[in-house]
């Protein structure tokens, strides 16, 4: 078992629902402080986007964040460098597209992530069939390869995904890209389908835009991932205090 899964299971064991915010690496000069603020406000783990020119699975908000960050020259390396300044003790999970790690070299990328205390990675354009080489690379380092399960995934496939995912299972609440339509959607059903065969932590993401939606989703899962709602605040110029306030709102809704 990879450290990410151990860590998340440990939190779950306390009865606490996991709150995982998403930040686009390099989006602002002070993005590391945003992460720290989120952790301070109650985040249990943080997803860190490594920007890609063609973020096919992302809606307008995260697309804009990708492109804006790229204009600042952000790379996998620059993000890892920045993270050396991070002062926070929660698990970090990278989120990027396959071409980025492929180009970096799969083993080299996994090693670099692990060296930077990033112990999980979500690659949304890697479905089960294509994920082998990346999982192999991740297995050479302590990086959990997190797989997604979609509302459209048929049962046998859910079983396979649940068996192969590492760290946690990412349950898409909707047939949608990030930030597109809001609400818990099919999250409950997807989590239930994972649960049939696996007790890996199962987090609901995609479309969790308000504390109330997060609360509902957390009730039927092990926690939630909050992406576009948060990135929008930063794109609009929000700083650490806005991040903190937002995360606190989600935290208290989930915990109530």
């Amino acid at each position, binding site marked *: 078992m990879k450290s990410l899964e151990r860590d998340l299971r440990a939190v779950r064991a306390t009865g606490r629902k996991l709150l995982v915010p998403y930040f686009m690496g390099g989006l602002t000069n002070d993005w590391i402080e945003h992460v720290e603020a989120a952790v301070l406000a109650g985040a249990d783990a943080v997803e860190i986007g490594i920007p*890609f020119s063609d973020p096919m699975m992302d*809606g307008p908000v995260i697309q804009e964040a990708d492109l804006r960050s790229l204009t600042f020259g952000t790379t*996998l390396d620059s993000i890892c460098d920045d993270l050396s300044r991070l002062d926070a003790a929660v698990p970090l999970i990278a989120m990027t597209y396959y*071409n980025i790690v*492929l180009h970096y070299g799969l083993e080299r990328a996994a090693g670099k992530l692990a060296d930077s205390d990033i112990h999980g990675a979500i690659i*949304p354009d890697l*479905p089960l069939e294509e994920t082998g080489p990346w999982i192999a690379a991740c297995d050479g380092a302590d990086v959990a390869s997190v797989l*997604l399960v979609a509302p*459209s995934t048929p049962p046998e496939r859910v079983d396979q995904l649940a068996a192969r995912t590492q760290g946690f299972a990412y349950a898409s609440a909707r047939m949608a890209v990030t930030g597109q339509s809001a609400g818990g959607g099919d999250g409950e059903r997807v989590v239930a389908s994972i649960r049939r065969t696996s007790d890996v932590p199962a987090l609901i993401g995609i479309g969790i835009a308000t504390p109330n939606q997060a609360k509902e989703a957390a009730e039927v899962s092990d926690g939630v991932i909050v992406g576009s709602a948060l990135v929008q605040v930063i794109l609009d110029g929000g700083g650490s205090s806005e991040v903190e306030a937002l995360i606190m709102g989600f935290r208290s809704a989930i915990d109530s």
Partner: protein
Amino acid sequence: MSDPVLYMEEPDERGRFGEFGGRFVPEALIPACLELEAAFIDAWSDAAFIEEYRTVLREFAGRPTPVTPLLRLGEHLGLRIFAKREDLAHTGSHKINNVIGQTLLTKRMGKRRVIAETGAGQHGVATATAAARLGLECTVFMGEVDTERQILNVFRMELLGSRVVPVTSGSRTLKDAVNEAMRDWVTCVADTHYCIGSVMGPHPFPWIVREFQSIIGQEASRQLADFGVDVPDVVIACVGGGSNAAGIFAGFANTSSRLVGIEAAGGSAVGNGSPGVLHGMRSLLMQDEFGQIEEAHSISAGLDYPGIGPEHAHLAQIRRAEYYAIGDEDVIGALRLLSEKEGIIPALETAHAVAWMIREAGGALPTGSTVLLNLSGRGDKDVAQVQAILHAES
């Protein structure tokens, strides 16, 4: 004795042509890709489906398109040139072959809506056309920059009853239109088929599109025989995603013909690219040292794509086909020469292939060679642009 190696056969079960291809899409789309693959395999072995596909091509799209001997240009260049006239297909290019196949598949899968990406608008117009014919709802994604450049094609799609969505993300051109179509598809996959416009995207698309386009090569091979040509020395096609090239190559891949694909210099995935993953496929891509995809830049919107279909990447790697690039500066002259000598104004895309033929006649194309040129589309869509360019030059 071992079996001979056959080219342009089915991809392997993982959708690979050699090391290229595959299916790099979100889990959410996997069922749709599997459904499509199953539907295609079923349809493509169903004589009734094939008959329907061929009937629509014949009765609606104007197939077979002729092979025209280009006598005056041939004399000028010292070559024996035959042109496969996809410019005469309905909507003005080979794109219709593919969309007719895919819209029939859409019906067969019981879906009521299609979506498509488009650059200059050729594939969008073709999809809107095939959708209108079958009464399917149709949405076309088009980069905002392109909707402005190609306002008449936007209107044409609207006349055909389609909705055109300007894509405002990224470089606001073709590559972003593909991204946006993928996003729509994720959302609406239950009742929507994504009608991809070239031999690209995740498996099974590169294979399906090649199969639907291979009618070009099949016809051409038969038609050349009527001219007493058994096998042409060289088969030439322009390459954007690579569908017209794949379609004509398919008819000659297992002959002694040289297969030559011509890319735009500013969109040369073989010449300037490296392996990578984009839009669901592993292929050759123009990208920077960090794996960020570069924007292509070509005078011709249809070649303005930073990638190439995976089967072409494979054919290049195993050297069964050759790929060269032509810069913008040679394209207009080629368009003019073909127009003046033969009375055929080609699309700017096609003009790239003509330009290479002109450049290499007597060189890489030895004098006296028999050449089959895929005349992938007509230039009507480009006339205003060509005029503006010539006007600016003068």
